[in-house]
């Protein structure tokens, strides 16, 4: 969903730029973009439901899931959110809603099957923490600021290149290209900051969720289980290994994780698990 927001914001900036190049008044452009952002903000839960295929379920359809969400919502002292299920074997979960009153929490059938009650509770606790921390709103505002900033920067360049706003437009193709390029660059840098913010909020939700449940280890277990990394540890005995390493096309030392951390919305799993385990220790035996 972050990617969707990213692309939407990007679309706004380009769209505004396009309107500018047609010579439309700035105030109109601002108005149009503003309306779009507001609509997106208020429609986001419905948009997400539509795009993920999540189906809202009643307490009769999924009594156990409803009980679990109710229990956690009570602990957060928030109203009961809508509960939705996505029918896919891929284990995942998300929460959305601009505030606790309009919250929705969704889980996939895959995650329901794979996790035990304690772990699922930790995952839902993490998602509700996003709602309690109002992360959707924080993110929407950050996105909005980035969009506005790139828009203003673009205007500035527009001025420098063509002198005067919406005035005489002897716009050569080259000048327009520069303006588009600046928009893209500024927007991209802004989004990197938003991604950093998102990762930070992710740690925050881990922490809040752990405090509410009092069991940070549960989420760590769930993360490890979902990621499936533990299952990469083989059944095979080392003595069955016949071939030497020398003939591998990619040497062992060159394989492994790349450097995509800057772009990912979630912090590296290992780091999250590590922090949760440390928190677990501290919570069990008090701060030292």
């Amino acid at each position, binding site marked *: 969903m972050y990617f969707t927001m990213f692309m939407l914001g990007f679309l706004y900036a380009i769209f505004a730029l396009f309107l500018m190049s047609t010579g439309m008044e700035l105030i109109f452009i601002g108005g149009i973009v503003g309306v779009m952002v507001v609509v997106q903000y208020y429609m986001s839960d419905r948009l997400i439901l539509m795009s993920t295929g999540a189906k809202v379920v009643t307490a009769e359809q999924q009594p156990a899931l409803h009980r679990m969400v109710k229990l956690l919502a009570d602990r957060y002292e928030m109203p009961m959110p809508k509960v939705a299920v996505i029918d896919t074997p891929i284990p995942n979960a998300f929460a959305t809603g601009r505030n606790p009153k309009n919250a929705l929490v969704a889980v996939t059938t895959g995650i329901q099957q794979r996790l035990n009650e304690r772990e699922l509770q930790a995952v839902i606790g993490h998602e509700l923490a996003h709602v309690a921390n109002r992360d959707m709103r924080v993110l929407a505002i950050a996105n909005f600021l980035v969009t506005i900033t790139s828009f203003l920067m673009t205007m500035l360049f527009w001025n420098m290149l063509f002198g005067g706003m919406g005035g005489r437009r002897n716009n050569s193709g080259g000048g327009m290209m520069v303006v588009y390029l600046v928009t893209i660059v500024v927007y991209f840098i802004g989004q990197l900051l938003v991604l950093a913010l998102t990762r930070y909020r992710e740690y925050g939700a881990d922490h809040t969720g752990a405090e509410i449940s009092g069991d940070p280890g549960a989420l760590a*277990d769930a993360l*490890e289980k979902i990621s499936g*990394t*533990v*299952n*990469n*540890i*083989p*059944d*095979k*005995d*080392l*003595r*069955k*290994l016949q071939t*030497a*390493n020398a003939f591998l096309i990619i040497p*062992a*030392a*060159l*394989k*492994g*994780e*790349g*450097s995509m951390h800057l772009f990912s919305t979630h912090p590296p799993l*290992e780091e999250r*698990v*590590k922090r949760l*385990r440390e928190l677990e*220790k501290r919570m*069990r*035996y008090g701060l030292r």
Partner: protein
Amino acid sequence: MGLFSGTKTPKDDWSAIATVIKAEAKLQALGEITPSRRAGVIYRNDENNSFQGDIKNELDVVLYVGKGATKTAFEIQDDDRGMRWIVLEDGNFGDLASSVYTVGNAIGMNDGVDNLLAAVFELYFTGTVEDNTYRSGLRTYWIYRYDRKAFYPFVPTGDSEGERDRQTEARLGQDLRKHGLVVEKSLTEWMGLWGIPF
């Protein structure tokens, strides 16, 4: 092991095996493990190799003769999967690790590099401190693969292939890395050794 990860894979066995001394000392200082005294080197025995064919006498020289010899006690055992084990015992963990290196190095230097499979250290978690992460009496093995130049933890739950506590191993791997041990990054390479003779 990306370009920016900052950790380097050691180029030789000694720089990797030396990290086990550091990690063991740290865990002992934390009160998480009892002093460890046993380890082993496993290799594919080749009777046609002159060094391996006379391994008992050769190791007597390598481990006992000369200044600075560790004088670690050793035993030769063949397992039912066609491998030979040099089982070492020493009350001084630094000496134990040195001897493990020495045995592997001696076999390797005498045309046996391709025969070397792994070195294995045995470590017990105790639970003498209140926030001990691992259950008391947990027996773990730290396996060093010569072809990978890295360690990984092995916690068997039985003697048959595949019986292992993966969750504990994954956790332990992270902790040991934190304590300075060179840990194999790729979990798919964490192959077990069931029926370790010590």
